[in-house]
């Protein structure tokens, strides 16, 4: 693999383990037709330099909203954001548009879920990559931009000769590689990948994940990987946050969350049991009953109690479950305090 230029990567490697992003008590509400949807509720997260965080949850859990709020990309008039988003010592919440624009694509960038609709169909892919470089580096020559585009394309495994083609000439996996090229064009400190492989075949997914892992190691960037696939998390991440109904219900290192002998949130257990296991023979799967509540109709008490196999009366009460903390491992569930169901 080509080496990535820049002292930034060097610098990042030196400062591994320092806090890069810290989200404190983040809440996001959407208001439409006087209906208030509580998409994200009191989320606390942090990502260290060079670390990969997996944000896991189902549709409507608030994963993408969390990511968009970091970049200040939420709709201005229909959403309210509360809390703090501290990126490299600065609070991005309420930062000016000018400030945010200088950060987006340069220090924090995002890979979107659907490569089919995220690329511009009427511009050549090379020029879409060049755009990002030009915007953040006003003084560099045309020639240098071209060189960088070639360099980045070969990094993501696309022959630079294809830079003059349009998005429709690429397959799904190749389009996602172009998206990744755009995202890493300015060598960001934080890469947010929003379900980068959901639209791809398993074989292509394996290729893309392998490539992203290689790039992450090389660049020393931090990654926030949004996904619903625990298999990908096991392969790629250092830390895991399980999100349900806008809250983080379990948070910890990969070992904390994946070690079956440790205590877990009933939702985490439910997620693991829902995955068809290819190494064991079982006749029926064990799904989580019921459906994810709509963010405008969140239940009182623990938001998971209507679907929880361990739910007790106590869980329906008005209080939010307390947090059980054991070292790096956090679980938000009543079963760990006195009044709740016993383990």
């Amino acid at each position, binding site marked *: 693999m080509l080496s990535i230029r820049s002292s930034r990567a060097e610098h990042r490697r030196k400062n591994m383990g320092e806090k890069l992003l810290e989200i404190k008590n983040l809440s996001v509400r959407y208001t439409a037709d006087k209906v208030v949807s509580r998409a994200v509720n009191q989320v606390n997260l942090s990502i260290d330099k060079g670390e990969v965080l997996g944000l896991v949850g189902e549709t409507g859990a608030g994963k993408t909203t969390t990511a968009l709020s970091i970049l200040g990309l939420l709709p201005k008039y229909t959403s309210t954001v509360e809390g703090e988003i501290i990126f490299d010592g600065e609070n991005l919440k309420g930062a000016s548009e000018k400030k945010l624009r200088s950060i987006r694509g340069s220090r924090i960038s995002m890979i979107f879920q659907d490569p089919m609709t995220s690329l511009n169909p009427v511009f050549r892919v090379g020029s879409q990559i060049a755009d990002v470089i030009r915007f953040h580096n006003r003084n560099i020559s045309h020639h240098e931009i071209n060189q960088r585009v070639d360099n980045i394309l070969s990094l993501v495994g696309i022959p630079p000769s294809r830079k003059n083609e349009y998005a429709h000439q690429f397959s799904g996996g190749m389009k996602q590689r172009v998206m990744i090229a755009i995202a890493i064009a300015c060598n960001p400190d934080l890469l947010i990948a929003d379900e980068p492989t959901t639209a791809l075949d398993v074989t292509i997914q394996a290729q893309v994940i392998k490539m992203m892992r290689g790039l992450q190691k090389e660049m020393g960037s931090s990654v926030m990987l949004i996904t619903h696939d625990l298999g990908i*998390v096991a*392969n790629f991440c250092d830390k895991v946050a399980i999100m349900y109904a806008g809250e983080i219900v379990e948070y910890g290192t990969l070992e904390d969350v994946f070690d079956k002998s440790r205590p877990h949130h009933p939702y985490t257990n439910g997620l693991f049991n829902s995955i068809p296991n290819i190494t064991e*023979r079982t006749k029926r799967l064990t799904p989580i009953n019921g459906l994810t509540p709509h963010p405008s109709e969140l239940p009182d008490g623990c938001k998971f109690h209507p679907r929880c196999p361990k739910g007790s009366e106590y869980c329906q009460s008005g209080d939010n479950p307390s947090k059980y903390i054991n070292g790096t491992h956090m679980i938000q569930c009543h079963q760990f305090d006195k009044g709740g169901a016993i383990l």
Partner: protein
Amino acid sequence: MSEKVLLECKNLKKYFETPKGMLHAVDDVSFKIGEGKTLGVVGESGCGKSTLGRTILRLLPSTDGKIIFDGKDITDIKPKDMTALRRQMQIIFQDPFSSLDPKMTVYQIIEEPLCIHKVFKNKQERTERVAELMEIVGLDRRYFNTYPHELDGGRRQRIGIARALALNPKFIVCDEPVSALDVSIQAQILNLMMNLKDKLGLTYIFITHDLSVVKHISDDILVLYLGKMVEMTSSDSLFEDPLHPYTKALLSAIPIPDISHKGKEAEIMKGEVTSPIDPPEGCRFAARCPKATERCFKEMPEFIEVKEKHFVACHLYN
């Protein structure tokens, strides 16, 4: 096989003419499905899975070969007779967002097949049947007059299933019915489909790209690559002892949610599915195959029985 064969395909072919040449979507596919059994059809996108399903249902005319359903050759059946046959053969589509008419209510969608086939004389009986169907698939009666856009993916897929069941079919083609759903909902729908199969004695063709899904629901599995049959055997022996390099690659590409696997670099298949337009002679997988020899590029491997009821098309076993 001692059991009754419900559906048989003999050398089924479906080609599409394109400006660039002949597109071989389904090429020489033969199999039998016994009554009450499930055949899983697996492959990457563009390998002809959906085309196979649609050709069997005669939603697309076949280019060559025979389709025998319940002892009758339906390959060249007249459209009128086909309409009657549709009562026994149904399909559940992949995308519960675009396969339901947005202008129809849940009730109307499920009622439509009953109206077309004039199953009941009056509206009251139809309403009862719709209510019964909604109960079977686990949809609450209060959704009678809602529109699909008001419901989530899991509920929408339940509507699609209820619609397919409306006419009491014997045979259903399930075209990636769970791939658009969340894991927890996916497990609910898979369990529902397995329960329905046992209760109503259905026969399924279950099309999917996800091998882990197909393991649970299928009796036999057929792996397709660029329209060609690559491997066919029982679900158990496919997972215990995959023979074809393509099947092996598909299996190793599944991310396993277990950290003891972390760091172990699975063998990742290079490249992407090549074009199905005028495919070259020889094995179609040869270009991506880690074990390809010269012979693979020249000669098409035959689909042969290597072990008991375990068929594979690969020169490694011939």
